[in-house]
C-alpha cells in the first residue's frame, strides 16, 4: 500500500547521504563523550588529520584509491543484481599478480609496470572469483555465500604462500621479497611535494580511469545494457536472448578484476612487497562505499574519499587523543558504515514525507502513482 514518494535527485544523491553522515557523527559524538572525551575536539582532530595538510590529504587519497577499486567491484556486480562480497579476498590474492609484474619488470620503467601490473592483478582477482561465478551461473550456488568462503580460502592460501614459496630470502615475517627500482609505483610526492611521505601514488590515476570506464561500461555499452536488464529482470534477459549464465560469469570476472587492482596500490604503491592482510579490510569498506555512492562512479568517488578521510582521520585521532583507543576508532568507522550504508533507508521515509508536504510537485507525482496502481 505504501506508495514510494520519489525524492528529487539532488536530495537522493546528496542530501540523504549527508544527513546519514551527520547522524553517524552525532551518535559517534555520544560514544566519544561517554568515555569522557570531547567530541568536538575529536572531530576537529579527524578533519585536520584527513585534510589539514598535504600529508593528510595524501594519505586520504591513498586510502581512497583502494576504496574506489573495491567500491567499483561491488557496484558493477550490483548493477547486474549480483552481490560480490568477496572483494577483499580477490584483492588479497591479486597481490600475487601485482608482485609478479613488479618483480619481472623491475628493470624497465614504471610506465610499463603500471599497465602490466594492473592487468596481472585484475586477472588474478578475476580468477579468484571464477569458481564462485561458475557455481552461481551453472549451479545456482549463491554468490554471497561462495565469495565470502573464498575470502577465507584466499587468506589461508596467502598465509601459506607467504610462509613458503613466496617468502622472500632473509625476510623475518610472512612476506615476499621487496620490489625495487622501476617495479615500484612513483609516489605523487614527486609531482606535488606537499604530499610528503604519504604513499599516494600513480595508481590513483588508474582508479580515476576505472571510474570512467565503469560509467561507460554500465551506461553506454550493449554489455552494460544487458547487465542492467538482468539486474532488474532476469526473465526479461532470457526472453531477449541474452545468456544469463554467461552474463553472470563475465560480470563477476569484471568485478573481481576491479577488486584485484587494489593490490597494485598496496603492493607496488605502498608496501613495496606482498605481506599478509594487505587489503586492510578495503574489500568490505568497498561495500559501504558502493552503497553510499549509489553504485554510480561519481558517488563512489565521493564515498571513497569520505572513507579514506575516516581511515586517515581515525589514525590521527589515535596519536592526538590517546584516550580514544583503536577499538573506539573502529566503533566510529562502523557507525558511519552502518548509517550511510546498511541503514541508508532509516531517514528516507521521513525525508520523503517532508518533501511530500513541502513540495507540490512531489505530491502530484506520488498521488498519480498511487492512483495508477489502485486503478489497475
Amino acid at each position, binding site marked *: 500500500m505504501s506508495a514510494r514518494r520519489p525524492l528529487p535527485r539532488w536530495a537522493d544523491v546528496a542530501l540523504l547521504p549527508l544527513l546519514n553522515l551527520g547522524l553517524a557523527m552525532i551518535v559517534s559524538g555520544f560514544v566519544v563523550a561517554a568515555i569522557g572525551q570531547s567530541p568536538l575536539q575529536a572531530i576537529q582532530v579527524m578533519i585536520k588529520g584527513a585534510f589539514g595538510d598535504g600529508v593528510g590529504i595524501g594519505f586520504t587519497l591513498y586510502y581512497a584509491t583502494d576504496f574506489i577499486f573495491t567500491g567499483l567491484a561491488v557496484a558493477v556486480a550490483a548493477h547486474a543484481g549480483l552481490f560480490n562480497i568477496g572483494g577483499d579476498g580477490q584483492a588479497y590474492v591479486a597481490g600475487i599478480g601485482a608482485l609478479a609484474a613488479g618483480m619481472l619488470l623491475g628493470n624497465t620503467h614504471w610506465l610499463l609496470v603500471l599497465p602490466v601490473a594492473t592487468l596481472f592483478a585484475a586477472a588474478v582477482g578475476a580468477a579468484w572469483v571464477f569458481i564462485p561465478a561458475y557455481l552461481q551461473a551453472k549451479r545456482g550456488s549463491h554468490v554471497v555465500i561462495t565469495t565470502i568462503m573464498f575470502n577465507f580460502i584466499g587468506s589461508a592460501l596467502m598465509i601459506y604462500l607467504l610462509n613458503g614459496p613466496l617468502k622472500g630470502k632473509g625476510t623475518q615475517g610472512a612476506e615476499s621479497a621487496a620490489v625495487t627500482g622501476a617495479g615500484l609505483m612513483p609516489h605523487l610526492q614527486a609531482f606535488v611535494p606537499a604530499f610528503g611521505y604519504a604513499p599516494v601514488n600513480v595508481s590513483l590515476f588508474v582508479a580515476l580511469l576505472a571510474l570512467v570506464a565503469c560509467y*561507460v561500461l554500465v551506461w*553506454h*555499452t*550493449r554489455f*552494460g*545494457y*544487458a547487465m*542492467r*536488464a538482468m539486474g*532488474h*529482470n532476469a*526473465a*526479461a534477459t*532470457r*526472453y*531477449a*536472448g*541474452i*545468456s*544469463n*549464465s*554467461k552474463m553472470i560469469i563475465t560480470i563477476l570476472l569484471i568485478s573481481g578484476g576491479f577488486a584485484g587492482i587494489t593490490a597494485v596500490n598496496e603492493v607496488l604503491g605502498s608496501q613495496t612487497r606482498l605481506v599478509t592482510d594487505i587489503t586492510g579490510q578495503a574489500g568490505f569498506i568497498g561495500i559501504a562505499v558502493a552503497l553510499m555512492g549509489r553504485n554510480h562512479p561519481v558517488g563512489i568517488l565521493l564515498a571513497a574519499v569520505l572513507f579514506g578521510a575516516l581511515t586517515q582521520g581515525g589514525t590521527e585521532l589515535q596519536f592526538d587523543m590517546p584516550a580514544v583507543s583503536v577499538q573506539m576508532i573502529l566503533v566510529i568507522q562502523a557507525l558511519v558504515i552502518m548509517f550511510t550504508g546498511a541503514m541508508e533507508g532509516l531517514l528516507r521515509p521521513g525525508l520523503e514525507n517532508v518533501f511530500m508536504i513541502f513540495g507540490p510537485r512531489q*505530491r*502530484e507525482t506520488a*498521488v*498519480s*502513482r*498511487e*492512483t*495508477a496502481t*489502485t*486503478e*489497475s
Partner: protein
Amino acid sequence: MAAASAWAIELRKINKRFGPVHANRDIDLKVKRGTIHGIVGENGAGKSTLMSILYGFYTADSGEILVNGALAHITDSRHALRLGIGMVHQHFMLVDNFSILENVILGAEESALLASSLNKARKELKRLADEYGFHVDPEAIVEDVSVGQQQRVEILKALYRGADILILDEPTGVLTPEEADDLFRVLHVLRDQGKTVILITHKLREIMAITDTVSVMRQGQMVATMPTAETSPEKLAEAMVGRRVLLRVEKGPAHPGKPLLEVKDLVVADDLKVNRVKGVSFTVRAGEIVGIAGVAGNGQSELLESIAGMRNQQSGDVIVNGSTLTLKGDDGAARARAAGLAHVPEDRQREGLVVQFEEWENSILGYQDDAAYAKGGLLDIAAARKEALQRMQKFDVRPANPRLKTASFSGGNQQKIVLAREMEHNPAVLVVGQPTRGVDIGAIEFIHNQIIKMRDAGKAILLISVELDEIRSLSDRILVMFDGHIVGEADPATATEGELGLMMAGVPPAEVIGRRVSADMTPNGGNP
C-alpha cells in the same frame, strides 16, 4: 422513506480528487437490494476509487453515502463491514499456509484460545456452504487449493463477517473459464438469497452474462446506468470509450502461402521436469493466423516459450523460415530472433519488459546487439531514442516520451510498446501470447488490427490466448490443446463455442461433431 430502503447502496454527488486528478466527479449511483450490479469502465475511469470510498479506504471530498436508506459516514473497512459491506479484492488477501478455516476467522477471532472460535466457525461455514451451495474443505491449506477455491474463501470471509453487500473487484482476472462460470453460479445463488452484489469488471461478456443492472464510468464520471437486458456489448463499449468501438474484428479471407513456422513432434518439460507439451506438430503458413485454444495450464505457455527459444525442448524440432532452431543453452531466444521470429510474451511485465527501464531501453530489448544501435563498441543511445519515439507515435503509445519509466505506462500502452518492438523488426513469424490481457477496449481494437495487418503483409502468426472470443475472432484456423496434445483443429467460421469447449475438455473433434452439440457455453447456459 420506505422507498429509499429498496436501495442497498445510494451514492449522491461523490467527489474525490487526488491532487490534479479528479478521480470521481459528482458520482450518483443506486444499487437495488438483491441484484447484481455491474460497474464497467476502462482502467483509470475511477471504479476502484469509488469502491474504495464505499469500503472506507478513502473518504470522499464531498457527497453522501446511504446504506440501506440510512446516511453513513464510512471511516474504515471495519465500519464498512459493520454496515454489511464486504469486499473481495482482485489480489487475494489470504495467508497461504493457513487452512481455509483459519483464514476465515483471521481478524474475527472471538477469544484468545482458538478452539472455540474455530468450532463456531466450522459450524458457520457448513451452514453457509449448505445455504449457498458452495463447498470448500475447511481444513485444506490455502496454497494447496485452486485459485477459484481461494476466491471462494475470500467470499466466505466476507459472508462470515455478516456481509449483505458484496463488492467484487475484477474477480475473473485470475480464473479459468470454468472457474469463472462457477463463480457466476455462486453469485446467482447469493443474489437469489437476497444478497446484493457489486461487480467491477472491464469484461463486457461477464456484464452481459450475469448482471441485472450495469453502470458505466468514464474519466471519473458515471456516464450511464441501465438494465442489462436493454443494452448490448457494443453500446457499453461505446459508453466506456466515448466513441464507437468495433468489437468484432473485421478481416478478409486468409491467403496462406508457404510454411514459415513448422513444429514437429515437439516435447517440452516445465521447470519441474514434467512434460507439458507431449509431442505436438503443426504448421503455420505465410499470411495466416493460427490460434491455439485451451484452458490455461494445458501446455500452451510451454509451447509458446519453447518456440520462442526461451525453453529448451526434450525432443522434436522447431523450424522457422526454413532453418531449424538449436534450442539449447539459455540464449535460444537470440537464435529464434535471428531466424526471423518475433515474440510477444504472455506476461509482458515479467518477461517482455524491464519495467524499471526508460521506454527507449525497452524498445531495443532483444535487439540490443542490432547494428542499428551500435556506434563503434558503444550503444547508440540517440538512435535508439529516435527510433523509439517514431514507434511510439506509430503505435499511438501515450504519452509518447521515450524517456519515461516503463512502469508508469498503463497496461495497454505497455503492450503496445512490446508489440511495436516485435512487429517493427519485420519478422517472418510472430508468436503472440495473450495479446490483450489487461488491456483497455480501445487498445484491444488497435492491437487486433495490427495483428491482422501483419497477417495481410504475409507473415505467419501463432496466437495463444485464454480468451476464447479472441481466438475465434482473430484466427484463420484454431488448434485446440488439451493436456499437452493437440486434440484437433477447428474452423473458426463454423465451430461453435460449445464444440470448442468440448474439445478444450479433451473430447476429440470427431466425437464432438457426432454429439451435435448445440448448447451455448455462456455462463447462463448452464443454468436451467
